[in-house]
């Protein structure tokens, strides 16, 4: 939905991906506009995660195009895409287990702050300033999700829900233009689901653009402005939560005939 005639932030057009003869995605197209919160839903194996991986550069596209801020980012390496301002989380919660919570966060920012290897080897004044700034930012984010008391603990000692929060704030570290969250509410307690929901909403309220893949329908319906539904790798519906709730095709895909 164009807002005030703005350019879409992310344009996905006719994305197609095959695995060993199986079609995981076929001609999927949708746009995300700045400040929007878009959810991607669909039954198991509908291609949500594949789409996530295609957009973030972890999988090569067989056909189609992904544009970010008007620039073609199809088949660009994942690290380059990340530096262009797209950050993602993973379904199976990935944190750097042997790093402390604070180091996890600081790692997320450093590539954005400088690219000069020599400066880093020398540890110049500028690098030390970056280091200082990164620490400030990290502590701010840890305060936000109440993880500050654990800042010096190795990530592997955290509880699952805490690691999920850590991964979430890690994605926020460089203040990216687009945040992609892969099942932020999966596998955590009800209380944690609510906290996660609040954080996502608050973030969106600040004007952040967010793309969410989520299984938990309650969460999806609560937070989304717009929803895209996938089934067997095809887009079968797109609309507001209320439109999707009443869509026949969606019901069929979820509950069968």
């Amino acid at each position, binding site marked *: 939905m164009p807002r005030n005639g703005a350019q879409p932030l992310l344009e996905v057009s006719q994305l197609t991906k095959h*695995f*060993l003869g199986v079609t995981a995605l076929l001609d999927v197209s949708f746009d995300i506009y700045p400040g929007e919160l878009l959810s991607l839903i669909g039954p198991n194996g509908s291609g949500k995660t594949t789409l996530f*991986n295609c957009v973030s550069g*972890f*999988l090569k596209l067989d056909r189609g195009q992904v544009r970010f801020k008007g620039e073609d980012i199809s088949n660009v390496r994942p690290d380059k895409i990340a530096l262009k301002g797209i950050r993602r989380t993973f379904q199976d919660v990935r944190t750097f287990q042997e790093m402390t919570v604070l180091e996890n966060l600081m790692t997320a920012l450093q590539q954005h702050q400088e690219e000069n290897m020599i400066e880093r080897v020398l540890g110049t004044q500028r690098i030390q300033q970056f280091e200082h700034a990164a620490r400030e930012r990290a502590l701010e984010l840890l305060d936000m999700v109440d993880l500050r008391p654990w800042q010096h603990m190795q990530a592997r000692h955290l509880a699952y829900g805490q690691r999920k929060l850590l991964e979430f704030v890690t994605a926020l570290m460089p203040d990216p233009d687009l945040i992609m969250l892969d099942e932020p509410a999966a596998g955590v307690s009800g209380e944690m689901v609510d906290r996660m929901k609040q954080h996502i909403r608050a973030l969106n309220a600040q004007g952040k653009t967010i793309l969410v893949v989520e299984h938990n329908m309650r969460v999806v319906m609560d937070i989304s402005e717009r929803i895209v539904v996938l089934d067997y790798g095809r887009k079968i519906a797109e609309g507001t939560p209320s439109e999707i709730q009443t869509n026949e095709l969606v019901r069929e895909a979820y509950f069968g005939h």
Partner: protein
Amino acid sequence: MPIEVAIFIEHIINGLTLGAFYALVTLGLSLIFGVARLVNFAHGDIFMVGGYTLFLLLNLSGVDLPYPLIILIVVVITAIVGLLVERVVIHPILNQSWRVQAVATLGISIVLQNLALILFTSDPKQTPTPYSRQIIEVMDIRISVQRLIVLVVVIVAFVGLQWFVKRTQLGKAMRAVSQNREMCQIVGIDVQRIAMLTFAISAGLAGLAAALMAPLFSVTPTMGLLITLKALAAVILGGLGQVNGAFYAAFLLGMIEALFGGYVSYQFRDVVSFGIFVLILFVRPQGLFGRKVGL
């Protein structure tokens, strides 16, 4: 038959027997990787243990055991050694990173080699059988019966292993573990036990290789080193964990060596076989017979 043709046939036969030798050692190595995701750098040293077992059995004073029985005893003893190694060293680190596992098996290799050196000195031990002396001569091509036995047994072992993996309870469980370890744990297959038995089978196969091959050369503490490297190359070329692929790759290596060593240069044959191995890795990191998997 012109002499060139006879020589060519002989080179092919050389390649087949060399390949059969590599294949027998490779089978066990590939099996362990498939089931336990473990690269056993001590596999060749278990082969060496089999060699010394053969030596001891052939030289038992007062007893003259028939060769087939000796082979069987060697297989059983190496399988037990394999089991012990698994219990003592491998078992506790089964869930550690591949780095730790690799270093641990290298540690086993150091221990076994030096134990052999202390127990038997570095003097090569001879383990001839009546078959290694019997030579068949057909149209200018001479080959010992022992080599023919190796060829036949390798094929039997390969087919037997196929049958075992596809038809028996244990074999099916092994296959299941190699395909999805987590799922097996969930459905209640005892993964640890399967890994242990696989280790024993793998060691037994190395013992079989030793009982068949050692009569053609000799037994020394360091005899396992080069064969481990060759077998590793075959396992990777075959596609990690693909037992069939590794088997074919072993024959491929044997053939390359025999033909290059026979027609071009013997001393550079390993440069060529390892060179081909490394080049194939660059082009097909998943091996010749392995499938490429996505993220």
